[in-house]
């Protein structure tokens, strides 16, 4: 048996959740952005591009694209937040700032989804 079993309760606070979301969204972007640019690259070849476009017209693809856009937005806002902590010393009221970042990410994702359909 190890001591640390339940010690992770110490992570249950907004700062850690924000850091986790920042990591995961960054990872998602690192994996999917190359695919995105690959698809853009297909634009040089009309038939292949048309195929890709019709593939991307499926609802499930649109939803995943919106999630990616939300990930990009939340990663961007979260990055600005960390810069503000480190360069402006803005360490107070971080739960509110974190909530703003999440709301920004979700808002952009929803806007994208609305335009996609």
């Amino acid at each position, binding site marked *: *048996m190890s*001591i640390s079993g339940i*010690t992770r309760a110490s992570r249950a606070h907004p700062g850690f959740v924000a*850091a986790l979301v920042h990591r995961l969204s960054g990872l998602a972007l690192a994996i999917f952005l190359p695919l995105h640019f690959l698809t853009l690259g297909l634009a040089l070849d009309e038939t292949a591009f048309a195929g890709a476009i019709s593939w991307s017209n499926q609802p499930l693809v649109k939803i995943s694209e919106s999630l990616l856009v939300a990930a990009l937005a939340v990663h961007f806002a979260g990055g600005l937040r960390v810069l503000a902590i*480190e360069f402006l010393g803005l360490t107070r009221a971080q739960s509110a700032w974190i909530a703003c970042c999440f709301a920004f990410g979700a808002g952009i994702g929803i806007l994208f989804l609305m335009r996609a359909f």
Partner: protein
Amino acid sequence: MTSSDRTLKVDIWRGNEKGEYQSFEVPERENQTVLDVVTYIQRHLDPALAYRFACRVGVCGSCTMTVNGRPRWTCRTHVSRVVKGGKLTIAPLTNLPVIRDLVTDMTPFFEKWRDARGRFVAGDGPKDELAPVQPESRERSAASAAIECINCGVCYSACDVVSWNDDYLGPAALNRAWAAYNDVRDGDRNGILKAVSQGAGCHTCHSHQSCTEHCPVSLNPTFSIAGLKRASLKAKLKGALK
């Protein structure tokens, strides 16, 4: 029913790095701290239980343990605030070697204070002249905000980066270095920046703020570390950190 009829179920870590939790029943009282519970067990149920405390009033920083998963100063933590369903789980601080039961070896913690150069270095001004420090100055306010640390190790235990990277100086040592850096009488302030910006120093911090979240005396090591990041970056750009 008087409060003494009720009992708490307390699981306490026994052993060192390897060990297991042992369960005890402890009478529940009004106004009982977690340290009271541990002391009750040691006095009445198992005299071999090892734990550490001194002041019992939140000054010495020696009574810290992991209580229901969070690092806390146990002498100032009321059971009623942290108990979950009549249960307490008490373990030693994480991120430090365990000597026995609830006692950790604080050596790495204090070695890092030394490595972060958190001590005063005299300048070479005349010894009989008092250096003026304006109470309202930016440096004095920054030092005041960081100085009340009780060396308890709670932040060090809560920091994820400490658990990922053995060499990371950690929030307490860096917070101390920031207080020392803001002492304008120090003879080698750049030396502090050098000490904290090399290797796994201030730039290793991810600004998660677990330290700030848990510090029992409400210090803000994240803010101090951000200050060191800025100061060392500036010094680097000016070529002062050779």
